[in-house]
């Protein structure tokens, strides 16, 4: 016991552990919001949408512009939070109908090239429209400060994230397990040919799923905007994290995304305390272990 306390002096520090747990949770919830849309799109359309991070970035830039143009300070953040993801959903819809629809039956390599190309095109468009300078979205006044948790300060804005993400998770579950549309989507992940043969308009279903997945990326970007710098490059950073979470959780599994996002968030949070020097590889180490033990991810299905 003495050895443990000398190696990890924080182990007896209850409040510190509590705050690390909470901050790990909020990291995990952000990861969940971003990765679940990517997982959903893959599960149904079998496309690894590399432009998912770009949708996240565009949503954050929408937040910047929406808040700038709205005169009313107190409400502008909340209105922007509603509108920005909708804008991204529309963008996703346009891209699905004009581009992705043409490549569902192509070689996966072609799909990767197209969605990778989208990263470059969207990145360049963002540079042209918003310029190279870093932007920032202020937190809404009501959530600018902190609350005390076990006597430790904790940012109140993260409470919004901690509250909203479980709502999204429950909402997703209700939609996919309690509605007819959700049932069709689940059926599409299992056998799309059969679904088409049964008279379901699979093409329309794909568009709807892609729009919904884009909306989720947009929600992640809009919610994250006040906690980061809105800048070029945020697409790549988030894409890697989302991709790792999706792979660990299992491509196409919502519950897998949730569990893996929380796992990654907490492991990162405590990894910093235990092995500060290697926190950079921790994320990938977890992914490697999962891929060795269960190549299809925690809750994914092995390919037949």
């Amino acid at each position, binding site marked *: 016991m003495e050895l443990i306390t000398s190696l990890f002096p924080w182990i007896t520090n209850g409040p510190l552990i509590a705050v690390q747990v909470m901050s790990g949770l*909020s990291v995990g919830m952000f990861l969940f919001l971003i990765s679940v849309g990517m997982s959903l799109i893959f599960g149904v359309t079998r496309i690894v949408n590399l432009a998912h991070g770009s949708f996240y970035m565009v949503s954050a830039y929408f937040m910047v512009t929406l808040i700038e143009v709205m005169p009313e300070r107190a409400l502008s953040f909340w209105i922007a939070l509603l509108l920005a993801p909708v804008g991204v959903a529309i963008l996703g819809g346009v891209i699905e109908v004009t581009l992705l629809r043409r490549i569902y039956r192509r070689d996966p390599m072609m799909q990767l090239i197209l969605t990778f190309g989208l990263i470059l095109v969207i990145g360049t468009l963002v540079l042209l429209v918003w310029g190279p300078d*870093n932007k920032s979205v202020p937190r809404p006044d009501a959530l600018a400060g902190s609350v005390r948790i076990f006597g430790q300060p904790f*940012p109140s804005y993260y409470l919004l994230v901690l509250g909203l993400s479980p709502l999204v998770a429950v909402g997703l579950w209700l939609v996919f397990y309690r509605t007819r549309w959700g049932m069709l989507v689940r059926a599409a992940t299992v056998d799309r040919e059969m679904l088409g043969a049964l008279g379901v308009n699979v093409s329309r279903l794909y568009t709807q799923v892609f729009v919904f997945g884009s909306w989720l990326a947009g929600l992640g970007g809009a919610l994250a905007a006040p906690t980061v710098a*809105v800048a070029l490059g945020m697409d790549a950073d988030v894409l890697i994290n989302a991709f790792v979470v999706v792979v660990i959780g299992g491509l196409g599994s919502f519950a897998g995304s949730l569990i893996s996002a929380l796992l990654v968030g907490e492991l990162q949070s405590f990894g910093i*305390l235990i092995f500060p020097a290697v926190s950079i590889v921790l994320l990938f180490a977890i992914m490697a272990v999962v891929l060795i033990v269960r190549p299809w991810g925690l809750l994914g299905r092995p390919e037949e």
Partner: protein
Amino acid sequence: MWTRSTSAVWPMVALLGLTVAVGPAAAQGKQPIRIGEINSYSGVATVFTFPYKEGLAMATKEINDAGGVLGRPLEFIHRDDKLKPDEAVKAARELVLQEKVDFLAGCITSAVGLAISAYAKDAKVLYFATHCQTSRLTWDEGHRYVAHTTNNVNQYVRVVARKAASFPYKKWAHISPDYEYGQNLWEEFWAFLKHLRPDVQVVQQNWPKLGESDHSSYITALLQSGAEAFFSGLWGAQEIAFVKQARPFGLVEKLHYFTPAIGTPDELDPLGKEAPIGAITTTFPWYDEGVLARHPKLPEWNRKYTEWAKAHGVKDPQPKLGASWGYASAYIMAEAIKRARSTDPDKVIGVLSEGFEMEFPWGRVIMRGCDQQAIPPQWGGVVKMNKEGKPIVADIEEFHGKDIIKSCDEVAQLRAAAAAKKK
């Protein structure tokens, strides 16, 4: 079919005629001195490279309007490195072999700078590293075919360390991105602080990955570290994110914040009222009354650059450090060629290895002979709110790099150690 193809041909012929007609006039009748400039002109680094490029272009225009260099106009041929060392080397090869440029220039990231430098050494082409900051360029990995026309890490990190040594803090922590530049920054800072104040100790270290978007866990770890002050090697968007995330935790009120990067308007302006008041940092204080009084030519340069930037569609036309670097780089290259009276690389290297000094609107820049490294003035200060509620760096203290930078003897030791390591 016939009419269709001819209608397409005529505009092309017209266009060709136009380029032939315009070409010689633009070159002012003389063969230009051509410099291949490789930098990152797409993606994340454009926040720095766009102002830099405008500074470079403005200086080039001034030089050419005043008769050029050796009676010939100076011309930069730009290439995008996409932030990748191998792309940069590919561009360098193309510029040297096909475009037949006289010199190479450019770089924003250290990795790109080192890669072009290695190519230049092999190809025996003189390379002027401009915007990248690693001290390895001219020190550990230095050679006669590379010159560095701006600051290196050593100079500005030592400004922060000097400032740090003037406070009574003994227990230190840090947060730096885990890659070459972040490690270089922290090591240089700590070595110099330890030298100035042997009683300091590190109580906690944080190494987030470059581009990490969520720092909450590092922030709580810093809060619990027992440190009195901390150093940050973060920069750009990542540091903005860190500061925004640290604010609700009250981190910068509890631990004194020392960071070379936050003083740039690229970080302070977007942060606005969320800026970390009291942080000790470095900056390019073009707006500071004391600095303007000390450098009477600076107001005129500020006005000229702002007009230039506006005329060229720069979204944020205020003077920036990068713009001053681009401006100085063009003049330093021109001066070296002028003094050599030739574009022959060996003759220009001869001039560079003797060293020279130049006056700029913001003070004297020394091109030191022993390492072909630029030594400009440096400014340190404290982040404060001005009267309009905008964060700026105030209480400016001016240093000159020559009083801070490692000596030629120390550089020789570094080079010897690096050479021994290679064997």
